[in-house]
């Protein structure tokens, strides 16, 4: 467990900013308690200072996880967000997409979101923007990247992909082995 280096922080924030933009500030500078990002075995954990201090007593080999995992650095040095951070990024997301009940399961099985399944979209979402995907009952289901801007979407066919799948909560079941 160690703090992120400057390069790592930059890569990480760049990815995170795609979804929550400047709201990262609220993660770094919280009113209630000091929180920090810590890297442990390539994974970035977001954890309160007090928990982190206690976790330093755990050996490196024995420490499995602490706080909330935001994602991991790949071997090539890119950052890959995991669905586990959904709670936080859903809280601060700028652009959201709601999908209809009939689109929930296809998305939870790892498919892209097609236009027909879209219930609502945040106005003025540009293309290639990170978005959080909600069910119509406001349960966050995952996140993705828009294929087209909101205005372009109107002209598209119902079967056209609107949001590319990035992560969904179905991964808790599908990828339990690789995710953690």
């Amino acid at each position, binding site marked *: 467990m160690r703090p992120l280096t400057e390069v790592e922080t930059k890569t990480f924030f*760049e990815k995170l900013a795609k979804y929550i933009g400047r709201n990262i500030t609220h993660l770094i500078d919280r009113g209630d308690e000091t929180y920090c990002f810590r890297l442990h075995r390539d994974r970035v954990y977001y954890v309160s200072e007090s928990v982190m201090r206690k976790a330093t007593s755990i050996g490196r080999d024995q420490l499995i996880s602490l706080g909330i995992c935001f994602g991991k650095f790949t071997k090539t040095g890119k950052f890959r967000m995991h669905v586990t951070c959904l709670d936080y990024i859903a809280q601060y997301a700028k652009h959201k997409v709601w999908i209809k009940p009939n689109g929930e399961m296809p998305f939870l099985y790892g498919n892209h979101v097609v236009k027909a399944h879209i219930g609502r979209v945040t106005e003025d979402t540009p293309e290639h923007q990170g978005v959080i995907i909600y069910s119509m009952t406001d349960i966050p289901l995952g996140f993705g990247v828009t294929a087209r801007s909101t205005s372009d979407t109107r002209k598209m066919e119902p079967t056209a992909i609107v949001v590319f799948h990035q992560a969904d909560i179905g991964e808790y079941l599908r990828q339990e082995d690789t995710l953690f």
Partner: protein
Amino acid sequence: MDVSGVLEAHKQKFKSVSVEGKVIPVEYDLGLLAAYDQNPVDEAALKKNKDEYLQSLCRDNAQLLFNEIFQLQTISDDNGVMAMLPVPTTLLPREKPLPKPKPETRWEKFAKAKGIGKRKKDRMVYGDASGEYKPRWGYKAINDDGTKDWIIEVPAGSNPMEDQYEARRDAKKERIDKNEKRHRRNLDEAAVATKMDQKAVDKGDRPDMDNVRGMKRKELESQILISKGSTASAGKFDNAIKGDLKPKGIKRQFAPTVADFSKEKAGNMSILDRVVGKNGEDLVNVRKAIKATKSRR
């Protein structure tokens, strides 16, 4: 004529050559023209009149030294009378460290193990046939009777058409080459040995020659790395080449896990400012603004 009075008077003019009052006899190293007076200094006299006391002390000791010198055996020639100085007994410290002992060559090691000593061979050997001393090798050497090589018997079983002279020359060349090779090997090993642990070398351990290549490689790599970093930017802006050498054994330094959190926070904020833009990229949603102004028109 009695000159004793004159001499006495003359004597009175100078101090006596015999020096009294030395409790501990003065030591001499005449080879270095040195005398060591180990008697304690008379503090009272020193305090009373420093210069006078020191001068008298010096004179007395110099007198003693000269007395000793005059005791030595002398020779006289054109330049005058000279005293024969003995070998100096005082050891002086060496300015430079002793040279390291050269690592043994393979032969030296072998000979040592087998108890083979060096045997001095005389340059001249007695020739039984000629009845006189002849050099062992070289011009008019003992074996060179001028008739030696005019004919060579073809050894049994060898090709009769083979040039035996050439074969001999080749054999000699081979011997020389082989020796040269060994010589070089000894030099290599010696070079490695100088980098080895000195104790091991002193014990007579041969360097591990499998290691020699590794050591050379390491040396080369370090030189390459140095040269790579020898650019105007100390290598910072040079593009990495795939498969290129990377400095080994240099540990990355990370910030401590638990440290000043305000500093960490500030660092993160500054990175965030760089990533997102200081004022926040979304103070004004440009597209929305354009749309709004358009619709107003």
